[in-house]
């Protein structure tokens, strides 16, 4: 507060309808930066530096079992990864799990959102139990599914699988992984969609109803268009999240029978193989893929990046 009041600000502050108070404004800026600094520093230190470091590592031959052979090899690690069939199998597996589980979640999530939004009885109960899959530790849920599908022990294996052991075969395993993913994350999808549903004006639905639109038409012609931004955000969140699938696969199959995801492959290379060069190259490739998915969502589908324009609106 010791700044001279006479010292006019050098550049005009973009006033947002408020009077440009030089001193107050400057104090506000300073406080804003100060308040954000700790969060920004932590986030950048724990992500920014490691990202740069992993790009650097990915350009080296660096195997912790043979530390003396560490040397710069350019893009050799990338060539090694991209020409490896295990990587592409994992990539295909991850894509398959992502696309199928997000598609199922969208349908189930929409149904669940409508139920939570409109049910006449037990709304609190439905919302409460819905949060349980969301909140439960993924590994715990994964163990539940694992034992459910273990022959003899499990109720699902006994009821549905007969003599076979589904978690020892590729396709049954993949569907069980998808089942576990869908069970766990549909509630989250539903909650995001429910927030979108709340934005649909009742009047609009009533008007459509007056004009003779049936329930399905009201849903596709009125609700979905209004909810489109919410739907896209939910899809973006879940797609990127599903692409990281790790916990469920680790517990259910440990990546056996070609069920490993890219995260699983990277983990195996790092922790079991101790190969930092290859592991880092995979890490960078996953990062690039995720960035591409986000780019496609935001640019092609026009998903509003959540929060990006919050400052301006409201």
């Amino acid at each position: 507060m010791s700044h001279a009041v006479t010292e006019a600000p050098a550049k005009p502050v973009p006033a947002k309808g408020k009077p440009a108070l030089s001193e107050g404004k400057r104090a506000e800026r300073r406080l804003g930066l100060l308040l954000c600094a700790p969060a920004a520093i932590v986030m950048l230190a724990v992500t920014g530096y490691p990202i740069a470091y992993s790009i650097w590592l990915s350009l080296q031959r660096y195997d912790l079992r043979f530390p003396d052979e560490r040397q710069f090899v350019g893009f050799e690690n990338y060539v090694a990864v991209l020409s490896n069939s295990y990587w592409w199998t994992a990539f295909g597996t991850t894509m398959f799990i992502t696309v199928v589980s997000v598609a199922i979640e969208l349908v189930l999530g929409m149904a669940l959102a409508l139920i939570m939004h409109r049910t006449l009885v037990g709304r609190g109960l439905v919302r409460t139990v819905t949060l349980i899959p969301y909140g439960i530790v993924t590994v715990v849920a994964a163990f539940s599914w694992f034992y459910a599908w273990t022959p003899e022990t499990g109720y699902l294996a006994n009821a549905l699988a007969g003599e076979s052991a589904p978690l020892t075969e590729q396709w049954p395993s993949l569907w069980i992984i998808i089942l576990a993913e869908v069970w766990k994350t549909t509630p989250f999808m539903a909650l995001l969609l429910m927030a979108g549903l709340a934005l649909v004006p009742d009047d609009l639905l009533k008007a459509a109803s007056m004009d003779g639109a049936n329930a399905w038409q009201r849903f596709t012609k009125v609700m979905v268009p209004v909810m489109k931004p919410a739907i896209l955000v939910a899809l973006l969140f879940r797609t990127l999240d599903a692409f990281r699938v790790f916990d469920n696969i680790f517990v259910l199959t440990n990546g056996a029978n070609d069920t490993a995801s890219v995260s699983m492959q990277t983990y195996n290379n790092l922790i079991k193989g101790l190969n930092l060069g290859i592991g880092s190259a995979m890490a960078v490739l996953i990062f690039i893929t995720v960035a591409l998915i986000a780019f496609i969502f935001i640019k092609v589908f026009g998903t509003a990046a959540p929060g990006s324009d919050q400052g301006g609106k409201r």
Partner: protein
Amino acid sequence: MAIGGAVTTGRKARWALVDIIVVVYALVPVLWIVSLSFKTKETLADGNFIPREWTFQNYADIFATDEFIRPLINSLGISIIATLIAVVLGMMAAYAIARLDFPGKKALVGVSLLIAMFPQISLVTPLFNIERQLGLFDTWPGLILPYITFALPLAIYTLSAFFREIPWELEKAAKMDGATPGQAFWKVIAPLAAPGVFTTAILVFIFCWNDFLFAISLTSTEASRTVPAALSFFTGASQFEDPTGTISAAAVVITIPIIIFVLFFQRRIVAGLTSGAVKG
């Protein structure tokens, strides 16, 4: 919202049926692991959904061994510390984002969005090596740091959404009465924001409590291994026993806090989850 038509008993019955389907969907996997945890060793593999013989032996077993108690302490300590730090830092940043005008605001929001969507595995490889060199590998701070980082975007989004709901006028009035912006924050806004802060803390805690990837990659012993990671290393009461019962019991124990949060704070959690993502 019933469009046309009164609320009849028939409609209520139909909704009740739908409700029951949802409840079954959500609870069956949870009840199954609870059931497993109460089964005796002899009946563990009988495939019955409801135990034929009930026992507390599995719980007695896990609480008799460091294999579970150490990780439980680690889980609690690491999650609580990370939650506290993330919420305090997030609160400061969210207040600035919601209320103040300053350069770099957009960049901060953008960066936290990037981190929220970042594939965590991509950080595991470099962090593994960095933490080994710094001596942070297999320590509490070694897990707390990445947890804070990935929890911060969640905290900032949820909190700034809550903070926007708080009436501006009160802060102005406080300033009018001579409070500095800092005082306006701690004395006026903070108490009003407490419910939002509390909700955010629950969401962040659930996130930290849930993590498996960092926990299994950045730890190697019971010095810092959390329960989700420890579960996958569980052996029974003795090395040669089938760990199904003990894993189930441990799984139930770490599910209890989540169930309590959900039961008591359902409304707040729903509000917190939806406000951050869709508003704007």
